[in-house]
C-alpha cells in the first residue's frame, strides 16, 4: 500500500534511545522548521497550517487553522498547550512528551510566531513527572540554543514558555477547565458562551488551546508545506465531518494507541493487514486470538464493539457496535459468566453511550467499509 511509504511525522525519532536530548534533536533536523518559519510572515505560517487542514489531535478534531483564525486581536494573547492526557486507553501525548520534548517545544514556538504570542504555557498533567523534567530540560536547552527567549535566532520575535504541572484531575483536559486550573483555581469548566477561549480565555485574554500532538505536527508542516502534509494523508474521516469541516476529509497519519493483549503494545502507526490465518495474527502480536471479545476503539468514551462469533472465529469475525445490544448479549458473546460482574460493571457505561457513535469524541473511527482497505483498529481491551 502506498500508505506504508508515507513519511513519519511526529514519530521520526522513535528509534533513538536519546531522542529527548538536544544533541539528538539537532542531529535529526531539529529547529530547522522554526528557522524556516522565522523567514516567513506570521500570516504565511498560519496559512500553511490552514492549507494543511490539520485537525486538532485532542479528540474533537477541530481544524487548527480555523481555531487560530478565530483569535481575537488583542495586545496580549496566550497560547496554551493541553497535555492533560487522561482519557482511559490514551497515551500518545505521554509518549511525545517523554520521548520528543524538543519537537513539542519547536511546534509551540512556531505556533506562537504564527499567532504573534509572546507567552505560551504548556499544561502537563502532574503524573508525568519524568515528562515534566524532560520538557523543562528541553526549555532550558532551547534558551541556551537561542531558540527561545528574546530575539529568537536573531529575529524580532521573542517568546517565553512556562511549564505548568497539573495537580491531577481528569476534567482539566477540557479546555476551559484547563484554563481555570492554570489560573490556580478548581478545574471546573467555564459556563458558555463565550464558546471559545479564543475570545475570552486565560486571565480574560484571547487564548488558543491546542493539543500536544497538534503542536508536534507543526515543524513538519512548516518544512514540507501544508500541501505536502495533505498529500501524506491516509486516514479518512466520516462524511458528516466532511460536511461540517469542508475539505478536511482526509488526514495524515495520527497516533493511535494500541494496548491490551498484545506482545508488543505500542503505537499503531501503520494500517494493519487483515489477519486471514491465526499464525499471521500471532506474528502481528495478539497473544490469544480465541479470547478476543469486546473491543474499545482507542478511547472509552466510545461504544465498545464486539464480535458475535469471537470465540469461534477470533478477530476476523464481523464486529458490531454494541450500542444497540443488551448487556447480557454482550456478556454471552464474550463468554463471561454472570458472577464475573466486574466486566459488566466496567463495560456497561461504555456500551450504554447514547446514539450509535456516542459522544463527540468518537471521531477517528473509520467507516466500516474502510476497515478492509485500511486495516482495522486494534484491540484495546479483552474480557477477563
Amino acid at each position: 500500500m502506498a500508505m506504508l511509504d508515507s513519511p513519519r511525522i511526529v514519530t521520526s525519532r522513535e528509534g533513538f534511545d536519546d531522542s529527548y536530548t538536544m544533541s539528538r534533536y539537532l542531529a535529526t533536523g531539529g529547529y530547522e522548521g522554526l528557522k524556516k518559519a522565522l523567514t516567513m510572515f506570521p500570516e504565511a505560517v498560519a496559512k500553511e497550517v490552514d492549507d494543511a487542514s490539520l485537525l486538532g489531535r485532542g479528540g474533537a478534531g477541530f481544524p487548527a487553522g480555523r481555531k487560530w483564525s478565530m483569535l481575537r486581536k488583542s495586545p496580549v494573547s496566550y497560547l496554551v498547550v493541553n497535555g492533560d492526557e487522561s482519557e482511559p486507553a490514551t497515551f500518545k501525548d505521554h509518549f511525545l512528551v517523554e520521548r520528543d520534548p524538543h519537537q513539542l517545544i519547536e511546534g509551540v514556538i512556531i505556533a506562537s510566531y504564527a499567532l504573534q504570542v509572546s507567552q505560551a504555557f504548556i499544561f502537563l498533567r502532574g503524573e508525568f513527572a519524568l515528562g515534566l523534567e524532560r520538557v523543562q530540560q528541553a526549555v532550558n536547552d532551547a534558551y541556551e540554543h537561542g531558540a527561545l527567549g528574546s530575539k529568537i535566532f536573531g529575529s524580532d520575535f521573542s517568546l517565553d514558555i512556562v511549564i505548568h504541572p497539573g495537580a491531577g484531575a481528569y476534567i482539566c483536559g477540557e479546555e476551559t477547565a484547563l484554563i481555570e486550573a492554570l489560573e490556580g483555581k478548581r478545574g471546573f469548566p467555564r459556563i458558555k458562551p463565550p464558546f471559545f477561549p479564543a475570545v475570552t480565555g486565560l486571565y480574560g485574554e484571547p487564548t488558543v488551546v491546542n493539543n500536544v500532538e497538534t503542536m508536534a505536527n507543526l515543524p513538519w508542516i512548516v518544512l514540507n508545506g501544508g500541501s505536502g502534509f495533505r498529500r501524506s494523508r491516509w486516514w479518512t474521516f466520516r462524511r458528516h465531518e466532511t460536511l461540517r469541516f469542508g475539505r478536511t476529509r482526509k488526514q495524515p497519519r495520527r497516533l493511535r494507541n494500541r494496548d491490551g493483549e498484545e506482545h508488543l503494545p505500542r503505537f499503531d502507526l501503520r494500517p494493519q493487514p487483515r489477519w486471514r490465518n491465526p499464525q499471521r495474527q500471532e506474528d502481528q502480536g495478539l497473544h490469544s486470538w480465541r479470547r478476543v471479545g469486546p473491543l474499545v476503539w482507542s478511547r472509552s468514551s466510545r461504544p465498545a464493539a464486539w464480535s458475535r462469533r469471537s470465540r469461534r472465529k477470533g478477530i476476523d469475525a464481523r464486529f458490531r457496535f454494541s450500542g444497540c445490544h443488551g448487556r447480557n448479549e454482550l456478556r454471552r458473546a464474550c463468554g463471561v459468566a454472570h458472577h464475573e460482574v466486574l466486566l459488566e460493571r466496567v463495560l456497561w457505561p461504555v456500551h450504554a453511550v447514547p446514539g450509535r457513535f456516542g459522544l463527540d469524541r468518537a471521531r477517528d473511527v473509520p467507516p466500516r467499509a474502510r476497515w478492509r482497505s485500511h486495516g482495522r483498529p486494534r484491540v484495546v481491551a479483552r474480557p477477563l
Partner: protein
Amino acid sequence: MRGTASFYDMFHLEPVGKYVVGICTNIACLLAGGQELLEHAETSLGCAVGSTSDDGLFTLEETECLADCNIAPCVQVNHRFVRTTTPEALDQLANELRSGRRDSDIPSHGTLIRVRRSVGLRAEKSEVSGQRAAAKAARDERASGERA
C-alpha cells in the same frame, strides 16, 4: 482553599509516606489485572488503599487512568512510572524501595520535578506595565461595548 485542595488528586490533606504508590484500576488496567495487583499491594506494602503503612514508608492509592496503558496495569511511585505489572515485580520493587536502591530515580514524595527552570525572559518594568495598561484598556473597552 480547602475546596481547591480537595478537588485535585495530587494534593493530600493528610501526611503521606515517603513513597506514594498509585495503581491504576481504570478500564485498560482493570482488564489487565489492576484490581488483583492492588489487592496484592495491600498485603505486600502493609497498608490498605488510601492509607499509610505503619513504618511511614508507603501510601497506597487507587488512581484513575495514568496514560501509560501500553504497560498495563500501570503503577506509579511518586508519580513516576515504574512499569511493574506483576505481583512478583511489585514485591521486588517494594524491597528495592525499602533498601533505598531506587533513590536515584525515584525521589521521595514532595519532589515532583528535579529539573529547575533556569531561564526566562527579562522585560523592562515600563514595558510590562505598558502592556498591562493596554490590555486593561482593551478589556474595559470591550466591557463597555458589551454593556452598550
